[in-house]
C-alpha cells in the first residue's frame, strides 16, 4: 500500500496570510506542482524603543519574511500593496513536487493523495475566522485561488466553480459555509477496490459450479436408490442421443452394492 502523501501549501499559505491569497496550483500527473500564488497579510505597526523610551516606527518587514514558507523549487519574492504599505505579500512561483510540499505545516486543511485520488480538504471554520470580524458585510477578503488536477474532478464544494479539471474559489464568505472539499481522479485510477470484484466473480463461479454439481449428483443418487417414473421423465431430456447407453451402466453398478449394505448392518441384527 502506498502511503498517503501530504501537501498543504495552499492551505498553509492561506492560513498564514489570513485568508487573502490569489493564484494557481497545477498538479501534474507525475506529482509535480506548478505554483503561482501570492498571499497577503496586513501587518501591525512595529516600533523600536530607545533607552529613553522614545518609540520609532519601523518599516514593515518584507512579506516573505513575515509569511516565511520555503519550499524546494519555489522562488519567493516580497511585495507591498502600493495603496496600503502595511499590507505585505509574498509571491511564490516555480515548479515543485507534492513530496517537497510535505514539509509545510498543514494547519486546518490538507491536499492529500492516495493511489487513486487527489483530495483537498479545508475546514470551513478556517474561513469563518477570516470573515466574521469584517466590519462590513460587503467587504470580502481578496481571494482567488484555482487548483488544476491531473484527472477528472469527482466532487467539489459548492463555494467553488469547475472548469475542466480546474476548481476555482473566489468567495471566502461562501467558503465559510462549505470549506474546501475536492476529490479528483489520479492516473491509474481504481474506481472500486481492485481485488474485490474478481473475488466475488470467482466466488460466484465456485458457488455455481458446486451448486450444479450437487444438483447433478442428487439426481444421480435418486436414480440409483429409487428410479421413479418422474426421474425417468426428468432424465430423458438430459440423456440426449445415447439414452440406452447411459441407463445400462447404472443397473450393473448398483445391484452389487445392495448386498454390501446388508453385511454392514448384519452385526446390529445379531444384537
Amino acid at each position, binding site marked *: *500500500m502506498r*502511503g*498517503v502523501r*501530504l501537501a498543504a501549501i495552499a492551505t498553509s499559505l492561506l*492560513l498564514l*496570510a*489570513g*485568508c487573502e491569497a490569489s493564484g494557481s496550483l497545477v498538479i501534474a500527473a507525475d506529482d509535480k506542482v506548478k505554483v503561482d500564488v501570492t498571499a497577503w497579510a*496586513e501587518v*501591525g505597526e512595529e516600533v523600536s524603543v530607545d533607552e529613553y523610551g522614545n518609540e520609532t516606527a519601523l518599516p514593515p518587514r518584507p512579506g516573505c519574511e513575515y509569511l516565511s514558507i520555503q519550499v524546494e523549487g519555489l522562488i519567493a519574492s516580497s511585495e507591498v500593496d502600493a495603496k496600503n504599505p502595511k499590507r505585505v505579500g509574498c509571491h511564490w512561483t516555480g515548479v515543485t513536487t507534492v513530496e517537497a510540499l510535505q*514539509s509545510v*505545516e*498543514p*494547519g*486546518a*486543511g*490538507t491536499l*492529500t493523495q*492516495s*493511489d*487513486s485520488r487527489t*483530495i483537498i*480538504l479545508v*475546514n*470551513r*471554520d*478556517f474561513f*469563518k*475566522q*477570516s470573515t466574521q*470580524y469584517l466590519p462590513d458585510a460587503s467587504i470580502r477578503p481578496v481571494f482567488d485561488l484555482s487548483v488544476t488536477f491531473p484527472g477528472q474532478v469527482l*466532487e467539489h464544494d459548492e463555494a467553488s466553480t469547475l472548469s475542466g479539471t480546474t476548481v476555482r474559489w473566489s468567495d471566502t464568505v461562501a467558503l465559510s459555509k462549505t*470549506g474546501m*472539499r475536492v*476529490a479528483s481522479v489520479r492516473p491509474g485510477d*481504481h474506481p*472500486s*477496490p481492485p*481485488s*474485490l*470484484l474478481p473475488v*466475488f466473480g*470467482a466466488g*460466484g*463461479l*465456485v*458457488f*455455481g*459450479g*458446486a*451448486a*450444479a*454439481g450437487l444438483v447433478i449428483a442428487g439426481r444421480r443418487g435418486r436414480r440409483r436408490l429409487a428410479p421413479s417414473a418422474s426421474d425417468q421423465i426428468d432424465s430423458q431430456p*438430459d*440423456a*440426449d442421443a*445415447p439414452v440406452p*447407453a*447411459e441407463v445400462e*451402466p447404472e443397473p450393473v453398478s448398483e445391484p452389487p452394492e445392495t448386498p454390501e449394505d446388508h453385511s454392514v448392518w448384519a452385526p446390529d441384527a445379531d444384537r
Partner: protein
Amino acid sequence: MHPRRRWAAALAASAALLCLGGCTVDATFVIHADDTVTVDVESWQRMDGVVFDQEGNVVPADEQGCSNLKHFLPGLQYETLTAASDFVPVIGCRATGTTTLAAIDGRTPLVHVGDRYVLFASPTWRQNFANDVSVPPGQKARPAHLSITFPGPVESTDSSATVDGTTVTWSDIRPSVDVSTAGGMVFLTPLQAIAYEAPNPFVTGLISALGAIVGAAAVVGFVRRRRKNGPGR
C-alpha cells in the same frame, strides 16, 4: 483583527475538537454504507474551575465532562463519568449512539468526499491530546486511542496506523514528530486514512450471479461431455 491573532484564532478553531483543555479519549467510529456512524467515545479531562463552551457560556462543573462531546458529536447519548483521583481531579464522559457524517461534518476530521472516506486529523488537532491527562485507574478506556471502521476497504493510511480488514486503528493519537528525509526537517505529522466506499451491491450481485451461471454451465457441460464420451470408452 490583527493578522497574527486571526491566524491564532484559526488555529484554535481547527484545534477545537473533542476537548479543549487537554484530554485523553478512547474513540471508536463505525461508518456504515449509508453514512450513518456508530460512535462510542470515552473522554477524560481535567476538572477546571471555570470552563466555557463553544459559545462562550460558563459550563457548570457537573456538565464539564460532556460539554465538548455534546458540541462535536451531537445527537448521541451522554453519560458523565467520575473517578477518584489522588492528584488532578478529572471528569469523564461517555458518548454512544448513532449519528450521521453530515451531522458531524466540520466538527470531526471525518468526511465522505467523492467516492472515498477520508480522515484527516491535522497536527494541530493532535495537540488536543498533548497533555498528561490519563485515564483514571480502574477505567477500561484505552488512552489516546482512535479506531475507525470504514464501509469499504482501506486504500491508504499514514505510517502510524494499523489496518485490520476495514478498520484503521491509531493506538496513540498524541502529537508526534517526523523527520523529513530531505534536509532533516522536523515536522508534526497528521493522522490520515483514505478508504473506498462499500462495494456496490448491484455490481457485486451481478458479478457474483454471472460467476455462478458460468460455473454452473461449466459443470453441466463437463458432465454432459463425460456422458457423451462414456459409451465410446
